[in-house]
């Protein structure tokens, strides 16, 4: 549905997006995940046609935004990060205005607005001015606006920012529901959110994708990296280190601050698909050491996210 090739965007010489490739098939919910300043919003703004890329090719469906962006904009629903809508308009008038500006061929615009009011539970605020609304209602009005014209593609910039936990759950389930029929791209810097709502996650850092896959795939990749903590008695630090590093699957041995009892505490960083604990145990057993503790920790998605986005 959406195909991005070699997209770059510079703001006054500062790089926001750097030679990015991304492919989003129809009907997928893609989460762009990254710390602030990773280029998420820029990518979304380029897709919506609000800003032009410095270079790169984008195709949305069969269309090329560089040729004519207006028909593409008609197929996209967009929820900006801070919903900047006309504060002195009534919610109803705002939605009515959007229907008119978009030139939607609706037989009964009023019925459509009522329908959106029901779906997003904004019935009760239809006759309040936008400026009076709380953040949660504002977000829902924004979502209603984004879906007003039943777009094929939905682009949401931090859809749950500033909401309370209940509202977050509501919005997430709404997104999942909408995502059954539509292509959705959302940006977030909250990992659990991407995990809960998205079919696929692309982790961004400094304008590049550093990981791309389903939440499960990224987790599996995480699981391949694990660390084992060992507490040994009667072991010489140097000797322990060299002998443990020779165990297959162990990449690195890092001494930790041991407890005051004088035992040796080590963290073994391991990679590879299989569990190295058995081999580590054999190695310990072959020496004259006493094993006080051995525990394994798979890296969480949080750790991966942190490492990926800090490394580059």
């Amino acid at each position, binding site marked *: 549905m959406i195909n991005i090739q070699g997209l770059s965007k510079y703001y006054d010489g500062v790089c926001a997006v750097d030679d990015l490739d991304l492919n989003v098939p129809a009907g997928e919910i893609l989460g762009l995940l990254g710390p602030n300043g990773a280029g998420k919003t820029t990518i979304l703004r380029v897709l919506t046609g609000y800003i032009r890329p410095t270079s790169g090719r984008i195709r949305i469906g069969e269309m090329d935004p560089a040729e004519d962006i207006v028909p593409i904009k008609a197929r996209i629903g967009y929820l900006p990060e801070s919903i*900047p*809508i*006309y504060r002195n308009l009534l919610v109803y008038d705002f939605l009515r205005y959007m229907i008119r500006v978009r030139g939607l061929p609706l037989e009964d615009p009023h019925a459509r607005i009522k329908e959106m009011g029901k779906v997003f539970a904004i019935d009760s605020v239809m006759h309040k001015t936008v400026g009076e609304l709380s953040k949660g209602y504002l977000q829902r009005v924004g979502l209603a606006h984004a879906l007003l014209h039943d777009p094929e593609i939905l682009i949401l910039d931090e859809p749950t920012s500033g909401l309370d936990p209940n509202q977050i759950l509501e919005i997430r389930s709404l997104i999942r529901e909408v995502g059954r029929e539509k292509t959705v791209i959302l940006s977030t810097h909250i990992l659990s959110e991407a995990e809960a709502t998205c079919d696929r996650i692309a982790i961004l850092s400094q304008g590049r994708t550093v990981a791309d896959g389903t939440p499960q795939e990224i987790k599996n990749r995480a699981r391949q990296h694990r660390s084992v903590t060992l507490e040994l008695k009667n072991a010489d630090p140097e000797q322990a280190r060299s002998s443990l590093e020779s165990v297959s699957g162990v990449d690195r041995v890092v001494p930790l601050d041991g407890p005051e009892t004088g035992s040796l505490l080590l963290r073994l960083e391991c990679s590879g698909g299989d569990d190295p604990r058995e081999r580590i145990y054999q190695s310990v057993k072959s020496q004259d050491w006493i094993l006080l503790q051995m525990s394994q920790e798979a890296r969480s998605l949080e750790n991966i996210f942190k490492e990926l986005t800090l490394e580059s």
Partner: protein
Amino acid sequence: MSALTAIWNKEFKDYFLTPIAYMVIAVFLVVVGWFFFSTFFIKNQANMQEFFQLLPIVFAFVVPALTMRLISEEISLGSYELMGTLPVRPRHIILGKFLACLCLIAAMLLPTLLYPLCIDRVGDLDWGPVLGGYLGALLLGGAYAAIGMLTSSLSRNQIVAFIVGAAVCFALAYLQRMLFFMPEAIQGFVDYLGAGSHFENIAQGVLDIRDVIYFLSIVFLGLYATKLVLESKE
């Protein structure tokens, strides 16, 4: 086309949702009425020339006050991001806003039609120059509105947009009286650039196509430059 009319409609209503329209119209009517009638009975002539002569200067302050928020507010509030993602061409946004402002200028001039109606009852009014004057006033208002929109698109700050817009309009209105300081070689050219002489011709009932073209080209240039400014923000 529907997007244009929707924007036009909304922007025109917006003027009346906030106190801007009421304040500007009131100030305009008080200022113009005061200055026009303070000398009207002394001169004792049944014509509207004095009234129309006030317009280039008064409009230079009033019209930028109407246009200052049109674009700069949308950019500073961020609602331009919303507009920028709607399937609407920038020219429709600009034209819709421009027409809304022009309609408000017409609404502002509407109550002043009472003047010629009253004058006609007490004296023998020649309606030709009056109608020409109103047409000229709309052309002048349109030209100032286009300049005001350009300055509004250049700044996020409405006050800056107003001051720069008013300064440019004022310069256009006053250029004709500054000819004295110019070298003779460029006097003709500068006179043509100024809005004053073109407006006076129309206000005297002389509808010269050159004057109409002058105002329409300012409108076109102003709006086109606004479009370029908005596009450069993409």
